[in-house]
Protein backbone atom coordinates (compact mmCIF):
# COMPACT_ATOMS: atom_id res chain seq x y z
CA UNK A 1 0.00 0.00 0.00
CA UNK A 2 2.85 2.38 -0.55
CA UNK A 3 2.17 2.89 -4.23
CA UNK A 4 0.80 6.10 -5.62
CA UNK A 5 -2.83 6.09 -6.51
CA UNK A 6 -3.13 9.54 -7.93
CA UNK A 7 -2.99 8.48 -11.53
CA UNK A 8 -6.64 7.62 -11.35
CA UNK A 9 -8.67 6.96 -14.39
CA UNK A 10 -8.95 10.13 -16.40
CA UNK A 11 -11.02 8.28 -18.94
CA UNK A 12 -13.66 7.35 -16.42
CA UNK A 13 -13.75 10.92 -15.19
CA UNK A 14 -14.58 12.06 -18.70
CA UNK A 15 -17.16 9.31 -18.92
CA UNK A 16 -18.79 10.34 -15.66
CA UNK A 17 -19.02 13.93 -16.86
CA UNK A 18 -20.74 12.78 -20.01
CA UNK A 19 -23.35 10.89 -18.02
CA UNK A 20 -23.69 13.52 -15.33
CA UNK A 21 -26.68 15.05 -17.05
CA UNK A 22 -28.87 12.16 -16.01
CA UNK A 23 -28.44 12.69 -12.27
CA UNK A 24 -27.16 16.01 -11.08
CA UNK A 25 -26.31 14.61 -7.63
CA UNK A 26 -23.96 12.10 -9.21
CA UNK A 27 -20.38 12.52 -8.20
CA UNK A 28 -17.18 11.60 -9.91
CA UNK A 29 -17.17 7.97 -8.86
CA UNK A 30 -13.49 7.75 -8.04
CA UNK A 31 -12.40 11.32 -7.46
CA UNK A 32 -9.23 11.89 -5.48
CA UNK A 33 -10.15 13.78 -2.31
CA UNK A 34 -7.87 14.52 0.61
CA UNK A 35 -8.90 11.82 3.06
CA UNK A 36 -8.97 9.02 0.52
CA UNK A 37 -5.64 10.08 -0.91
CA UNK A 38 -4.20 10.26 2.60
CA UNK A 39 -5.35 6.78 3.58
CA UNK A 40 -4.15 5.27 0.30
CA UNK A 41 -0.72 6.70 1.00
CA UNK A 42 -0.46 5.14 4.46
CA UNK A 43 1.09 1.82 5.30
CA UNK A 44 -1.60 -0.38 6.83
CA UNK A 45 -0.71 -2.69 9.69
CA UNK A 46 -2.80 -5.86 9.70
CA UNK A 47 -2.19 -6.49 13.41
CA UNK A 48 -3.52 -3.09 14.42
CA UNK A 49 -6.26 -3.55 11.85
CA UNK A 50 -7.45 -6.71 13.60
CA UNK A 51 -7.91 -4.70 16.80
CA UNK A 52 -9.61 -1.80 15.09
CA UNK A 53 -11.93 -4.15 13.21
CA UNK A 54 -13.57 -5.18 16.47
CA UNK A 55 -16.05 -2.34 16.14
CA UNK A 56 -17.00 -3.53 12.65
CA UNK A 57 -17.53 -7.18 13.47
CA UNK A 58 -20.83 -6.63 15.30
CA UNK A 59 -22.26 -6.34 11.78
CA UNK A 60 -19.69 -7.80 9.39
CA UNK A 61 -19.09 -10.73 11.73
CA UNK A 62 -15.96 -12.35 13.01
CA UNK A 63 -13.58 -12.96 10.13
CA UNK A 64 -15.46 -10.31 8.10
CA UNK A 65 -17.56 -13.00 6.45
CA UNK A 66 -20.73 -10.91 6.32
CA UNK A 67 -24.17 -12.46 6.27
CA UNK A 68 -25.81 -14.67 3.71
CA UNK A 69 -29.01 -12.61 3.98
CA UNK A 70 -27.08 -9.82 2.28
CA UNK A 71 -27.63 -7.36 5.09
CA UNK A 72 -23.87 -6.97 5.49
CA UNK A 73 -21.32 -7.85 2.83
CA UNK A 74 -18.27 -9.99 3.17
CA UNK A 75 -15.17 -7.89 3.48
CA UNK A 76 -12.67 -10.72 3.87
CA UNK A 77 -10.29 -10.93 0.94
CA UNK A 78 -11.47 -7.68 -0.63
CA UNK A 79 -8.81 -5.42 -2.16
CA UNK A 80 -7.46 -2.83 0.24
CA UNK A 81 -7.94 -0.09 -2.35
CA UNK A 82 -11.63 -0.97 -2.67
CA UNK A 83 -12.15 -1.15 1.10
CA UNK A 84 -10.48 2.22 1.58
CA UNK A 85 -12.46 3.85 -1.19
CA UNK A 86 -15.77 2.50 0.06
CA UNK A 87 -15.16 3.34 3.71
CA UNK A 88 -14.00 6.87 3.02
CA UNK A 89 -16.81 7.29 0.50
CA UNK A 90 -19.36 6.25 3.13
CA UNK A 91 -18.08 8.57 5.77
CA UNK A 92 -17.74 11.51 3.41
CA UNK A 93 -21.27 10.97 2.13
CA UNK A 94 -20.22 9.90 -1.35
CA UNK A 95 -21.88 6.55 -0.77
CA UNK A 96 -25.15 6.79 1.08
CA UNK A 97 -25.26 4.27 3.91
CA UNK A 98 -27.11 5.56 6.97
CA UNK A 99 -26.76 2.27 8.85
CA UNK A 100 -23.01 2.27 8.63
CA UNK A 101 -22.33 6.00 8.77
CA UNK A 102 -22.20 6.40 12.59
CA UNK A 103 -19.80 3.48 12.84
CA UNK A 104 -17.48 4.95 10.24
CA UNK A 105 -17.36 8.37 11.90
CA UNK A 106 -14.07 10.16 12.51
CA UNK A 107 -14.62 9.84 16.26
CA UNK A 108 -14.76 6.07 15.84
CA UNK A 109 -12.16 5.22 13.20
CA UNK A 110 -9.03 7.22 12.51
CA UNK A 111 -7.44 7.68 9.11
CA UNK A 112 -4.64 5.32 10.09
CA UNK A 113 -7.15 2.73 11.33
CA UNK A 114 -8.84 2.68 7.92
CA UNK A 115 -5.52 1.74 6.33
CA UNK A 116 -4.92 -0.83 9.08
CA UNK A 117 -8.36 -2.38 8.75
CA UNK A 118 -7.98 -2.61 4.98
CA UNK A 119 -4.60 -4.32 5.36
CA UNK A 120 -6.15 -6.78 7.80
CA UNK A 121 -9.20 -7.55 5.70
CA UNK A 122 -7.50 -8.04 2.35
CA UNK A 123 -5.41 -10.87 3.78
CA UNK A 124 -8.26 -12.75 5.48
CA UNK A 125 -9.22 -16.17 4.17
CA UNK A 126 -12.37 -16.45 2.06
CA UNK A 127 -14.13 -19.75 2.68
CA UNK A 128 -16.58 -20.95 0.04
CA UNK A 129 -19.52 -20.59 2.41
CA UNK A 130 -21.10 -17.49 0.87
CA UNK A 131 -24.82 -17.40 0.20
CA UNK A 132 -25.76 -18.39 -3.33
CA UNK A 133 -28.79 -17.89 -5.57
CA UNK A 134 -31.34 -20.46 -6.66
CA UNK A 135 -29.09 -21.79 -9.43
CA UNK A 136 -31.94 -21.97 -11.96
CA UNK A 137 -30.69 -19.45 -14.50
CA UNK A 138 -26.95 -19.90 -14.52
CA UNK A 139 -26.53 -20.08 -18.30
CA UNK A 140 -27.94 -16.58 -18.63
CA UNK A 141 -25.84 -15.43 -15.69
CA UNK A 142 -22.67 -16.82 -17.26
CA UNK A 143 -23.42 -15.23 -20.63
CA UNK A 144 -24.07 -11.80 -19.12
CA UNK A 145 -21.08 -12.00 -16.83
CA UNK A 146 -18.65 -12.94 -19.60
CA UNK A 147 -20.09 -10.34 -21.96
CA UNK A 148 -20.40 -7.39 -19.59
CA UNK A 149 -18.66 -7.92 -16.25
CA UNK A 150 -15.53 -9.98 -16.77
CA UNK A 151 -13.70 -7.19 -18.58
CA UNK A 152 -13.45 -5.25 -15.31
CA UNK A 153 -14.17 -7.74 -12.51
CA UNK A 154 -12.10 -10.49 -14.10
CA UNK A 155 -13.04 -13.89 -15.48
CA UNK A 156 -12.78 -15.33 -11.98
CA UNK A 157 -14.37 -12.36 -10.27
CA UNK A 158 -11.06 -11.23 -8.88
CA UNK A 159 -11.54 -7.49 -9.49
CA UNK A 160 -8.66 -5.09 -9.95
CA UNK A 161 -6.77 -3.59 -7.05
CA UNK A 162 -5.29 -0.73 -9.07
CA UNK A 163 -8.54 0.32 -10.67
CA UNK A 164 -10.62 0.05 -7.46
CA UNK A 165 -12.80 -2.65 -9.05
CA UNK A 166 -14.03 -4.92 -6.29
CA UNK A 167 -13.48 -8.59 -6.10
CA UNK A 168 -16.93 -10.19 -6.48
CA UNK A 169 -16.04 -13.85 -5.95
CA UNK A 170 -16.93 -15.16 -2.51
CA UNK A 171 -19.52 -12.43 -2.01
CA UNK A 172 -23.02 -13.23 -0.80
CA UNK A 173 -25.65 -13.54 -3.52
CA UNK A 174 -28.15 -11.32 -1.73
CA UNK A 175 -25.67 -8.53 -1.31
CA UNK A 176 -24.66 -8.71 -4.98
CA UNK A 177 -28.34 -8.67 -5.90
CA UNK A 178 -29.09 -5.57 -3.85
CA UNK A 179 -26.08 -3.55 -4.89
CA UNK A 180 -26.47 -4.39 -8.57
CA UNK A 181 -30.04 -3.15 -8.44
CA UNK A 182 -28.99 0.03 -6.68
CA UNK A 183 -26.28 0.65 -9.26
CA UNK A 184 -28.59 -0.06 -12.17
CA UNK A 185 -31.22 2.27 -10.73
CA UNK A 186 -28.69 5.04 -10.20
CA UNK A 187 -29.07 4.84 -6.40
CA UNK A 188 -25.49 4.13 -5.49
CA UNK A 189 -23.93 7.52 -5.83
CA UNK A 190 -20.32 6.44 -6.01
CA UNK A 191 -20.88 3.77 -8.65
CA UNK A 192 -18.75 3.71 -11.76
CA UNK A 193 -20.83 5.29 -14.56
CA UNK A 194 -19.36 2.79 -17.01
CA UNK A 195 -21.02 0.03 -15.02
CA UNK A 196 -24.30 1.89 -14.79
CA UNK A 197 -24.24 2.24 -18.56
CA UNK A 198 -23.55 -1.46 -19.02
CA UNK A 199 -26.36 -2.76 -16.80
CA UNK A 200 -28.94 -0.01 -17.11
CA UNK A 201 -31.16 -2.17 -19.33
CA UNK A 202 -30.80 -5.30 -17.20
CA UNK A 203 -34.10 -6.74 -16.02
CA UNK A 204 -34.46 -7.93 -12.42
CA UNK A 205 -34.12 -11.47 -13.80
CA UNK A 206 -30.89 -10.54 -15.57
CA UNK A 207 -29.49 -9.13 -12.35
CA UNK A 208 -30.56 -12.16 -10.34
CA UNK A 209 -28.96 -14.49 -12.90
CA UNK A 210 -25.66 -12.67 -13.00
CA UNK A 211 -25.53 -12.26 -9.21
CA UNK A 212 -26.17 -15.97 -8.86
CA UNK A 213 -23.36 -16.72 -11.31
CA UNK A 214 -21.00 -14.41 -9.42
CA UNK A 215 -21.85 -16.04 -6.12
CA UNK A 216 -20.62 -19.34 -7.59
CA UNK A 217 -17.26 -18.11 -8.88
CA UNK A 218 -14.28 -19.91 -7.34
CA UNK A 219 -13.02 -18.23 -4.18
CA UNK A 220 -9.39 -19.21 -4.66
CA UNK A 221 -7.58 -16.09 -5.76
CA UNK A 222 -4.74 -15.77 -8.18
CA UNK A 223 -2.28 -13.47 -6.43
CA UNK A 224 -2.37 -10.06 -8.06
CA UNK A 225 0.99 -8.43 -8.50
CA UNK A 226 0.39 -4.71 -8.67
Amino acid sequence: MTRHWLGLPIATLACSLAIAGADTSRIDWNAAYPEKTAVLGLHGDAGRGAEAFVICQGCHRVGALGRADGSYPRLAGQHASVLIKQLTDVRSGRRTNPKMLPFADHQVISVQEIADIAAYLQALPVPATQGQGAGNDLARGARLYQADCAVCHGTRGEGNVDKFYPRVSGQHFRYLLRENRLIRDNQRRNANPEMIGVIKNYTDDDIAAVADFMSRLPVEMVKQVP
Partner: protein
Amino acid sequence: MGYANIILSLTCKRARAAFLLAPFILLPVSLLAADAQDTVTTICATCHGADGNSTDPVNPKLAGMGQEYLLRQLNAFASGKRRDEIMSAIIASIDSNDFPKLAAYYGPKQPSPGKVQNQQLAAKGRPLYEDGNTDSGVPACAGCHQSDGRGNARFPRLAGQHQAYTVKQLNDYKSGRRATDPLMTTVGKRLTADEIKAVAEYIAGL
Protein backbone atom coordinates in the same frame (compact mmCIF):
# COMPACT_ATOMS: atom_id res chain seq x y z
CA MET B 1 -14.20 8.05 60.91
CA GLY B 2 -17.67 8.99 62.08
CA TYR B 3 -18.83 9.73 58.58
CA ALA B 4 -17.53 6.47 57.25
CA ASN B 5 -19.44 4.55 59.87
CA ILE B 6 -22.62 6.37 59.11
CA ILE B 7 -22.19 5.80 55.43
CA LEU B 8 -21.35 2.15 55.81
CA SER B 9 -24.39 1.62 57.93
CA LEU B 10 -26.63 2.71 55.12
CA THR B 11 -27.53 0.98 51.95
CA CYS B 12 -27.31 3.15 48.93
CA LYS B 13 -30.91 3.77 47.99
CA ARG B 14 -31.52 6.63 45.66
CA ALA B 15 -34.16 7.97 48.04
CA ARG B 16 -31.45 8.56 50.58
CA ALA B 17 -29.16 10.21 48.11
CA ALA B 18 -29.49 13.70 49.46
CA PHE B 19 -28.81 12.49 52.98
CA LEU B 20 -25.81 10.52 51.83
CA LEU B 21 -24.33 13.29 49.79
CA ALA B 22 -24.17 15.86 52.53
CA PRO B 23 -21.24 14.31 54.37
CA PHE B 24 -19.18 13.86 51.19
CA ILE B 25 -19.55 17.45 50.27
CA LEU B 26 -18.85 18.72 53.76
CA LEU B 27 -16.06 16.34 54.59
CA PRO B 28 -12.66 18.01 54.68
CA VAL B 29 -10.35 16.86 51.93
CA SER B 30 -7.72 15.78 54.43
CA LEU B 31 -10.05 13.17 55.86
CA LEU B 32 -10.98 11.90 52.46
CA ALA B 33 -7.99 10.06 51.92
CA ALA B 34 -4.58 10.04 51.36
CA ASP B 35 -4.84 6.81 49.56
CA ALA B 36 -7.28 5.00 47.40
CA GLN B 37 -8.05 2.32 49.97
CA ASP B 38 -9.56 4.98 52.23
CA THR B 39 -11.53 6.34 49.34
CA VAL B 40 -12.81 2.88 48.52
CA THR B 41 -13.83 2.22 52.09
CA THR B 42 -15.39 5.55 52.85
CA ILE B 43 -16.95 6.35 49.51
CA CYS B 44 -17.06 3.79 46.71
CA ALA B 45 -17.82 0.67 48.71
CA THR B 46 -21.02 2.16 50.03
CA CYS B 47 -22.69 1.66 46.69
CA HIS B 48 -20.36 -0.57 44.69
CA GLY B 49 -19.26 -2.92 47.47
CA ALA B 50 -15.72 -3.37 48.73
CA ASP B 51 -15.35 -6.27 46.29
CA GLY B 52 -16.88 -4.33 43.39
CA ASN B 53 -20.02 -6.44 43.35
CA SER B 54 -22.82 -4.08 44.30
CA THR B 55 -25.95 -5.62 45.72
CA ASP B 56 -28.33 -2.82 44.80
CA PRO B 57 -29.22 -3.37 41.12
CA VAL B 58 -29.23 0.33 40.29
CA ASN B 59 -25.53 0.51 41.09
CA PRO B 60 -23.20 -1.16 38.63
CA LYS B 61 -20.86 -3.97 39.48
CA LEU B 62 -17.35 -2.74 38.83
CA ALA B 63 -15.50 -6.00 39.47
CA GLY B 64 -13.89 -7.35 36.34
CA MET B 65 -14.33 -4.14 34.35
CA GLY B 66 -11.29 -3.04 32.37
CA GLN B 67 -9.21 -0.52 34.26
CA GLU B 68 -9.00 1.73 31.22
CA TYR B 69 -12.76 1.78 30.99
CA LEU B 70 -13.20 2.52 34.70
CA LEU B 71 -10.68 5.33 34.52
CA ARG B 72 -12.36 6.77 31.45
CA GLN B 73 -15.70 6.81 33.24
CA LEU B 74 -14.27 8.43 36.38
CA ASN B 75 -12.77 11.14 34.22
CA ALA B 76 -16.04 11.51 32.34
CA PHE B 77 -17.96 12.01 35.59
CA ALA B 78 -15.33 14.48 36.79
CA SER B 79 -15.46 16.52 33.60
CA GLY B 80 -19.26 16.45 33.48
CA LYS B 81 -19.28 14.53 30.23
CA ARG B 82 -21.15 11.76 32.04
CA ARG B 83 -23.73 12.73 34.61
CA ASP B 84 -25.57 10.91 37.34
CA GLU B 85 -27.37 12.48 40.27
CA ILE B 86 -25.24 10.59 42.76
CA MET B 87 -21.94 9.98 41.00
CA SER B 88 -21.63 13.53 39.72
CA ALA B 89 -21.87 14.87 43.25
CA ILE B 90 -19.60 12.25 44.76
CA ILE B 91 -16.88 12.56 42.15
CA ALA B 92 -16.24 16.14 43.20
CA SER B 93 -15.09 14.91 46.58
CA ILE B 94 -12.51 12.50 45.17
CA ASP B 95 -9.01 13.62 44.31
CA SER B 96 -8.52 12.95 40.62
CA ASN B 97 -5.05 11.62 41.40
CA ASP B 98 -6.86 8.69 42.99
CA PHE B 99 -8.79 7.78 39.86
CA PRO B 100 -6.14 5.43 38.46
CA LYS B 101 -5.81 3.78 41.87
CA LEU B 102 -9.55 3.26 42.13
CA ALA B 103 -9.66 1.77 38.65
CA ALA B 104 -6.73 -0.48 39.57
CA TYR B 105 -8.50 -1.51 42.77
CA TYR B 106 -11.84 -2.48 41.26
CA GLY B 107 -10.82 -3.70 37.80
CA PRO B 108 -9.10 -6.92 38.90
CA LYS B 109 -11.74 -7.91 41.49
CA GLN B 110 -13.57 -11.16 40.91
CA PRO B 111 -17.01 -10.45 39.42
CA SER B 112 -19.97 -12.24 40.97
CA PRO B 113 -22.41 -14.00 38.66
CA GLY B 114 -25.65 -12.21 37.83
CA LYS B 115 -29.09 -13.70 38.12
CA VAL B 116 -31.59 -14.13 35.29
CA GLN B 117 -35.06 -13.38 36.62
CA ASN B 118 -37.00 -14.10 33.46
CA GLN B 119 -35.70 -16.93 31.29
CA GLN B 120 -38.11 -16.17 28.44
CA LEU B 121 -36.94 -12.60 28.27
CA ALA B 122 -33.30 -13.68 28.37
CA ALA B 123 -33.96 -16.09 25.49
CA LYS B 124 -35.29 -13.17 23.46
CA GLY B 125 -32.23 -11.14 24.26
CA ARG B 126 -29.78 -13.78 23.15
CA PRO B 127 -30.16 -13.41 19.34
CA LEU B 128 -29.95 -9.66 19.68
CA TYR B 129 -26.76 -9.96 21.71
CA GLU B 130 -25.22 -12.48 19.33
CA ASP B 131 -26.50 -11.22 15.97
CA GLY B 132 -27.86 -7.71 16.41
CA ASN B 133 -30.85 -6.51 14.42
CA THR B 134 -30.09 -6.27 10.72
CA ASP B 135 -33.31 -4.39 9.97
CA SER B 136 -32.62 -1.51 12.32
CA GLY B 137 -28.84 -1.67 12.04
CA VAL B 138 -28.13 -2.70 15.62
CA PRO B 139 -24.77 -4.46 15.63
CA ALA B 140 -24.29 -7.60 17.67
CA CYS B 141 -23.24 -6.69 21.22
CA ALA B 142 -20.89 -9.65 20.99
CA GLY B 143 -18.91 -7.88 18.27
CA CYS B 144 -17.30 -5.51 20.77
CA HIS B 145 -18.17 -6.95 24.19
CA GLN B 146 -17.49 -10.55 23.09
CA SER B 147 -19.78 -13.54 23.24
CA ASP B 148 -19.16 -14.15 26.91
CA GLY B 149 -19.53 -10.43 27.72
CA ARG B 150 -16.14 -10.07 29.31
CA GLY B 151 -15.24 -6.95 27.31
CA ASN B 152 -11.72 -5.69 26.89
CA ALA B 153 -9.65 -2.56 27.46
CA ARG B 154 -11.85 -0.40 25.30
CA PHE B 155 -15.26 -1.98 25.82
CA PRO B 156 -16.62 -2.68 29.28
CA ARG B 157 -17.47 -6.03 30.75
CA LEU B 158 -21.22 -6.64 30.61
CA ALA B 159 -21.44 -10.20 31.88
CA GLY B 160 -23.45 -10.61 35.07
CA GLN B 161 -24.33 -6.93 35.30
CA HIS B 162 -27.54 -5.95 37.09
CA GLN B 163 -30.46 -5.70 34.68
CA ALA B 164 -31.63 -2.39 36.10
CA TYR B 165 -28.27 -0.78 35.53
CA THR B 166 -27.91 -2.08 31.96
CA VAL B 167 -31.44 -0.96 31.12
CA LYS B 168 -30.80 2.51 32.51
CA GLN B 169 -27.55 2.93 30.58
CA LEU B 170 -29.09 1.83 27.29
CA ASN B 171 -32.04 4.15 27.88
CA ASP B 172 -29.65 6.97 28.72
CA TYR B 173 -27.75 6.37 25.48
CA LYS B 174 -31.06 6.32 23.65
CA SER B 175 -32.20 9.61 25.13
CA GLY B 176 -28.80 11.24 24.76
CA ARG B 177 -28.45 11.66 28.51
CA ARG B 178 -25.31 9.55 28.42
CA ALA B 179 -23.07 10.61 25.58
CA THR B 180 -19.73 9.09 26.45
CA ASP B 181 -19.52 6.98 23.31
CA PRO B 182 -20.97 7.88 19.91
CA LEU B 183 -21.20 4.22 18.94
CA MET B 184 -23.37 3.39 21.90
CA THR B 185 -25.50 6.47 21.30
CA THR B 186 -26.27 5.05 17.86
CA VAL B 187 -26.92 1.61 19.29
CA GLY B 188 -29.21 3.03 21.99
CA LYS B 189 -31.23 5.03 19.49
CA ARG B 190 -31.74 1.95 17.32
CA LEU B 191 -32.82 -0.34 20.14
CA THR B 192 -36.48 -0.58 21.09
CA ALA B 193 -37.62 -0.51 24.72
CA ASP B 194 -38.44 -4.23 24.53
CA GLU B 195 -35.07 -5.06 23.03
CA ILE B 196 -33.33 -3.16 25.81
CA LYS B 197 -35.13 -5.16 28.50
CA ALA B 198 -34.47 -8.45 26.74
CA VAL B 199 -30.79 -7.90 26.11
CA ALA B 200 -30.23 -6.66 29.68
CA GLU B 201 -31.83 -9.85 30.96
CA TYR B 202 -29.60 -11.97 28.75
CA ILE B 203 -26.51 -10.04 29.84
CA ALA B 204 -27.32 -10.67 33.50
CA GLY B 205 -26.98 -14.39 32.81
CA LEU B 206 -23.66 -14.24 31.02
